[in-house]
């Protein structure tokens, strides 16, 4: 064994230029696999996190039909009973908050457009969504402050208004009439996505309940679990517990189908990318190894004549490939990790394309994320397939006869 390693190592440095060329190919290939998958994972991760903190939470409870028709007609009146069930069934560390969420029209003297009016419980909401932490000017809602409203920075600009100004909200109330109510802008939030800033306005839960004449009914409960992996299990448990309550329990995957689909697409994209890189790299490896083998026909003939068994020769050639691959992987991984590490702090700033990115729900700055399974996958692909394609030259080398070698000039 030792001998194979020694001979293999020396063999690959017999032609340093050729080795350097193929090493470069492998290094670039591996680097691109790791770096690109890191970027894609970063984008996907950000979409998930944006989505979850964007009022989604890990789980949501809605009255039946609310998700199909998010209007005030579908509401949960016995919120207290539901709260009791939640307290029994949620794992320790989970936080949840009640909301009323309806479509409304916000207007002032200059502008009016559709928004999503969200009535929140300020203290509880602060624990599970972005609103409280994203306030850049003014202040967050206080409970009992039934005239305050929090709007996004982009909405403020669109309406040509500012803090302290009035915003009139209109929506359909429980009796089917149009009810309107004036609010004063007390806080401004800023988020990664402009669309979010324009879409959501936040007021106190009691203010919306009064405006829509729904007493203490709510339209949504959002739950944040200690970890998002628990979502499915807890959802199942809640569905059982709430079987006769006419409540829909949805996980974040149900609520963010686009994100879920995007993650799937990214998975396939990463797989395809690995494949493409490997095919390009594989041809290089086969070519180099074949060249190395054909150059040394006389040598293999001699070895055969000296009594070396074909298996050993094969093992020798494969060891050479393995060294090439290992060296390439080492440098490639190192480079990949270094470039990801270098970007971990600052991210890649894509502000220039922000409008386009927002369309697909991406942030302005991408922070790459390394997933162990991608790195292991990339390395395994290169080693296993690399050895597999080297098997052909190795086989060739093993089956030269001394006579063939002699006649070869």
């Amino acid at each position: 064994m030792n001998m194979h390693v020694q001979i293999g190592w020396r063999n690959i440095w017999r032609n340093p230029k050729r080795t350097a060329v193929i090493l470069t190919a492998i290094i670039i290939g591996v680097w691109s696999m790791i770096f690109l998958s890191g970027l894609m994972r970063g984008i996907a991760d950000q979409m998930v996190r944006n989505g979850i903190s964007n009022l989604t939470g890990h789980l949501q409870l809605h009255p039946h039909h609310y998700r199909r028709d998010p209007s005030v007609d579908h509401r949960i009146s016995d919120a207290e009973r539901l709260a009791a069930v939640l307290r029994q069934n949620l794992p320790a560390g989970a936080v949840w908050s009640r909301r009323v969420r309806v479509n409304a029209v916000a207007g002032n003297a200059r502008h009016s457009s559709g928004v999503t009016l969200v009535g929140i419980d300020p203290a509880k909401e602060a624990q599970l969504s972005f609103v409280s932490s994203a306030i850049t000017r003014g202040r967050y809602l206080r409970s009992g402050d039934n005239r305050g409203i929090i709007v996004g920075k982009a909405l403020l600009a669109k309406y040509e208004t500012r803090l302290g100004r009035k915003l009139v909200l209109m929506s359909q109330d429980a009796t089917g009439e149009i009810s309107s109510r004036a609010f004063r802008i007390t806080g401004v939030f800023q988020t990664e996505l402009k669309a979010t800033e324009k879409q959501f306005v936040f007021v106190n839960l009691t203010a919306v309940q009064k405006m829509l004449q729904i007493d203490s009914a709510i339209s949504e409960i959002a739950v944040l679990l200690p970890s998002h992996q628990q979502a499915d299990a807890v959802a199942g448990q809640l569905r059982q517990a709430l079987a006769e309550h006419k409540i829909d329990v949805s996980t974040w995957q149900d609520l963010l189908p686009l994100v879920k689909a995007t993650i799937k697409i990214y998975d396939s994209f990463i797989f395809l990318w690995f494949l493409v890189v490997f095919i390009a790299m594989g041809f290089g490896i086969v070519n180099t190894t074949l060249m190395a083998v054909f150059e040394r026909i006389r040598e293999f003939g001699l070895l055969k004549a000296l009594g070396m068994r074909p298996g050993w020769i094969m093992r020798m050639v494969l060891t050479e490939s393995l060294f090439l691959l290992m060296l390439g992987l080492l440098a490639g991984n190192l480079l990949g990790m270094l470039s990801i590490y270098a970007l971990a702090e600052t991210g890649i700033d894509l502000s220039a394309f922000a409008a386009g990115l927002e369309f697909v729900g991406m942030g302005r700055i991408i922070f790459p994320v390394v997933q162990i399974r991608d790195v292991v996958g990339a390395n395994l692909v290169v080693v296993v397939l690399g050895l597999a394609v080297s098997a052909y030259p190795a086989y060739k080398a093993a089956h030269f006869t001394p006579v063939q070698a002699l006649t070869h000039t």
Partner: protein
Amino acid sequence: MGRYLLIIAAVLMVMWRPAEALDGQAVVEAGFNYMRGKTSVSVVTMTIQRPGWRRVMSIKAWTRGTDQSLFRTIAPSKDQGNGTLKKGREMWMYNPKVNRVIKIPPSMMSQSWMGSDFSNNDLAKSDSLITDYDHRIVATETDGDIKVYVIESIPKPDAPVVWGMQKLKIRSDHIFLMQQFFDEDLKPVKTMLTTDLQKMGDRLFPKSWRMQNAESPNEYTVLEYQSLVFDAELPRRQISLHALKNPGRRP
């Protein structure tokens, strides 16, 4: 002498107080009622002017009090039969081409009415001026030899209105001369001016109403009354969903 002065002063006070204290609310309400009548039937041409185009249409309108009205487009023939019904604060629209009545949802209330400078809300919440504002007479002018009250109307705190202020000019014979809408910074947004006072039906009435966008001079809407009859006999069914859906039956 001093006693006389005192009496004169007292008399002056008594005479002067009611005139000055004649509160804005009463002036506005009186003006409102005068312009509306108990019922009215009118034909109006509406001209919508925009930088790129201009559109003229004729509308027939029936109103009862402040909260019921029906508008029906009678020309051009392309738009004939389009109707808007207002009852209380609700509005419905009817389009004969699709033969459907649509209740105007909240989302459309602040959009413009038939493309004009009037919003659906201007129609649906026309009484908001009376209920949601505090009116104060800030000055008086004269129009010819008739006194004109200049009124500043500030929305009541928490009133669900978008305007920061409205400025009204109402003649002492109840005719609205101007209604100007301000945003919360008290910058004008749009202004309605009435001109061309004529005897229409049984009363003096401005023939032309012009809603002017404050920021672009060539965006405005002009309503021109062709005919106007007040307090005519108006059957209850004339302003109803049924009437909205059946434009063919003219009263």
